[in-house]
């Protein structure tokens, strides 16, 4: 299609001068045109230096330099603009911009006019030392000036849950507007897990950065580390090309992460409909899968396994043989438990038709990952923007689904089966690898790189901008949960409030990945 955006490739650095700089109205029109064609937002962020200490006048003339990265089919597009202090919001035309514009407002104090739901995202002062868009005094506790969506009427009641929940779970606040047992609207307000990772990254040493990207979301450590590694590999002046065995190990790390989490989620879903045997079996098998990652790198969450330039460990053929042996032993157990879950009528009675998100809503919200595939969007970054060994692998397309809890569970189950097959094929090919040390690298000056990978929850993306000296000026992170929290809210519409836990588990989104 014709667009003024510039075509880029996943994981390839470009000169910042090659990013088309469009006047705001043109930028807005072009971005909306891409969305009209079915395009989605990968990143939309202010590019003023964010390192915790912005120089005065960081936003000359009150303009905020901003970059948008969009995807349309199998092509990535980028363009830049200067956002005025107040501008006509894009969200009013296309919902996919919703949370991105809220984030821009929070991080840099720009106001999207006529944004339908302009609220804080993570509750912190903006980085530009500008007047606060929300009129907050951040000495006051979260949520500050947050007016929740309200429904009025005689039979209406409100249920507020969190931030501290009843289980061993991350904190977040959920507001349900109900009529009787039926949920009319669920509002999710987060930010409790906000650690300020983005401002820490530009000034961090390579060692610290490795730790930080591995802890954006602990259960998605391999995927975030891989996005970081791809960014540094693309920007480094030295040759950091990754050997084939290293690529295979990195691919295996990502698949093991997917397997462990999907398996755990299936168990949790089963537990939530009070079918306990699979809950226990899956809990145990998830542990076995995490222990395979432990075998590779000494950490159950693959810390330090994926590093810029390769992998962090010396691996011998016996390592992949060991993991393959364990996986082969586990495979029939996984298959049988999955079969047990989906053929048990009491499970199906609760899963079927519960918390449906229509294909249309999923498109509008721009959902990603298994949650999107469950609503019939078949985007998978492994297939559309393949990296590592995925270029050699046929990632199966998922079948069209109905958008309910059943579909979200079934997608996980299918992906478990596919991942096991993929690993059984891949692991025997991995012979030995030599470890690569994490070290500071000189980076190309004045460059931009965008990286994407398909984590178990969906598309993870990192964007790194360097300044004229090759220092990291802005490090932007996007976890798939950033796209999907509104999907969960949508699934609860007109659903019984007692089905919230089930729907919540069927999405199992990351609070820390969202909150950064």
């Amino acid at each position, binding site marked *: 299609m014709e667009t003024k955006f510039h075509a880029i490739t996943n994981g390839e650095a470009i000169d910042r001068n090659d990013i088309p700089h469009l006047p705001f109205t043109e930028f807005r029109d072009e971005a909306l045109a891409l969305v009209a064609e079915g395009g989605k937002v990968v990143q939309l962020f202010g590019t003023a230096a964010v390192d*915790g200490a912005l120089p005065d006048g960081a936003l000359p003339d009150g303009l905020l330099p901003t970059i948008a990265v969009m995807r349309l089919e199998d092509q990535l597009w980028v363009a830049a603009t200067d956002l005025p202090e107040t501008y006509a919001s894009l969200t009013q035309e296309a919902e996919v911009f919703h949370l991105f514009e809220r984030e821009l407002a929070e991080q840099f104090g720009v106001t999207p006019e006529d944004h339908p739901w302009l609220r804080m995202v993570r*509750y*912190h002062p903006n980085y530009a030392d500008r007047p606060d868009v929300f009129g907050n005094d*951040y000495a006051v*506790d979260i949520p500050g000036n947050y007016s929740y969506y309200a429904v009025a009427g005689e039979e209406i009641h409100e249920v507020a849950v969190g*931030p*501290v929940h*009843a289980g*061993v*779970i*991350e*904190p977040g606040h959920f507001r349900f507007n109900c009529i009787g047992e039926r949920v009319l609207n669920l509002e999710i307000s987060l*930010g*409790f*897990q*906000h*650690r*300020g*990772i983005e*401002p*820490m990254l530009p000034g961090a*040493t390579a*060692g*610290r950065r*490795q*730790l930080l990207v*591995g*802890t*954006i*979301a*602990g*259960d998605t*450590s391999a995927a975030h580390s891989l996005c970081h590694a791809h960014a540094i590999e693309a920007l480094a002046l030295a040759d950091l090309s990754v050997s084939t065995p290293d690529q295979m190990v990195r691919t295996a790390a990502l698949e093991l992460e997917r397997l462990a989490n999907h398996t755990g989620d299936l168990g949790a879903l089963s537990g939530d409909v009070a079918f306990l*045997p*699979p809950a*226990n*079996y899956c*809990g*145990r098998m*998830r*542990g076995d899968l995490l*222990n395979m990652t*432990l*075998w590779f790198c*000494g*950490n*159950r*969450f693959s*810390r*330090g396994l994926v590093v810029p330039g390769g992998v962090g460990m010396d691996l011998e053929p016996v390592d992949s043989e060991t993991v393959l042996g364990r996986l082969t032993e586990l495979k*029939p*157990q996984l298959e*049988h438990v999955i*079969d*047990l879950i989906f053929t*048990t009528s009491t499970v199906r009675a609760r899963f079927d038709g519960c918390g449906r998100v229509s294909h249309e809503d999923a498109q509008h919200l721009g959902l990603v990952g298994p949650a999107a595939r469950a609503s019939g969007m078949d985007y998978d970054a492994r297939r559309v923007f393949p990296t590592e060994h995925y270029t050699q692998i046929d990632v199966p397309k998922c079948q069209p689904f109905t958008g309910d809890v059943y579909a979200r569970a079934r997608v996980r189950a299918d992906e478990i089966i596919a991942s096991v097959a993929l690993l059984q094929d891949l692991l025997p090919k991995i012979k030995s690898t030599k*470890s690569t040390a994490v070290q500071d690298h000189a980076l190309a000056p004045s460059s931009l790189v965008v990286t994407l990978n398909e984590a178990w929850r969906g598309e993870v993306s990192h964007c790194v901008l360097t300044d004229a000296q090759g220092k990291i000026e802005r490090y932007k992170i996007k976890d798939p949960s950033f796209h999907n929290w509104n999907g969960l809210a949508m699934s609860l519409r007109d659903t019984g409030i007692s089905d919230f836990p089930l729907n919540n588990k069927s999405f199992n989104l*990351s*609070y*820390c990945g969202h909150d950064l």
Partner: protein
Amino acid sequence: MLKTLMNRFEQGNRTSSYPKTPIEMPSRYRGVPTIAPEGPDAPADLAKACAEACPQAAFDADKRTIDLGRCCFCGTCERVSKSKLVHFTQSFELSTAKREHLITDGIGAKNGANDDANAGALPDLANHAKQHFKKLFGRSLQLRQISAAGCNACEADLNVLTTPFFDLSRFGIDFVASPRHADAVVVTGPISRNMRTATLTTYEAMPAPKAVIAVGACAISGGPFTGSPEVSEGLESLLPVDLFIPGCPAHPLTNLHALLSFFK
């Protein structure tokens, strides 16, 4: 029905017999470190190189100590010193009752030893445990978990304690839904500004006597996020901590060992 039974047979009995029989960790697991005294193999400049490479400022080159409360067990110091100076053993018994006990000189740790012979490295937890806690909570311990801005891996590795392999409740220990029912609070994460009040309120809602447990580098020192204005420098800046369980994340067995030694 038949499927349920067949799955049951296939799954078998998976509960570990730990602590009765020791568990061996895979060789790449990084547990209690040993640190070599100064010598030709481990000269002072190697110690300096380790300290410089440590992303967490956990390694002190002069004193030759590692602060396990800050350490994220990334293994960089071990790699830099080619295991000559720092070596991580497979012992997962890392927890202590005092913050200063976490600063270890790594002398006496033996590879894989999960018994008293290992006590040289870190003070023996059972002997430093508060005896009145053992009396109060030794037979039944109810835990309330607060997740306060970590990466959720520490929570995950606490959660697995309830899976069949660890089966925490066989020891009379359980996670409960309400602070009102809790004897001890288990905090993970560096306690962000946005979780500070919720953490304190949860603690206040618990009836006394109550114990406070910090799990993971984050809760002990801020972990990887230390230095960010959005997080605290550890739970101790807010509450009196009784038990420190280090790791990034703390391995489930580290958690289990700590709970059993400290309260049982």
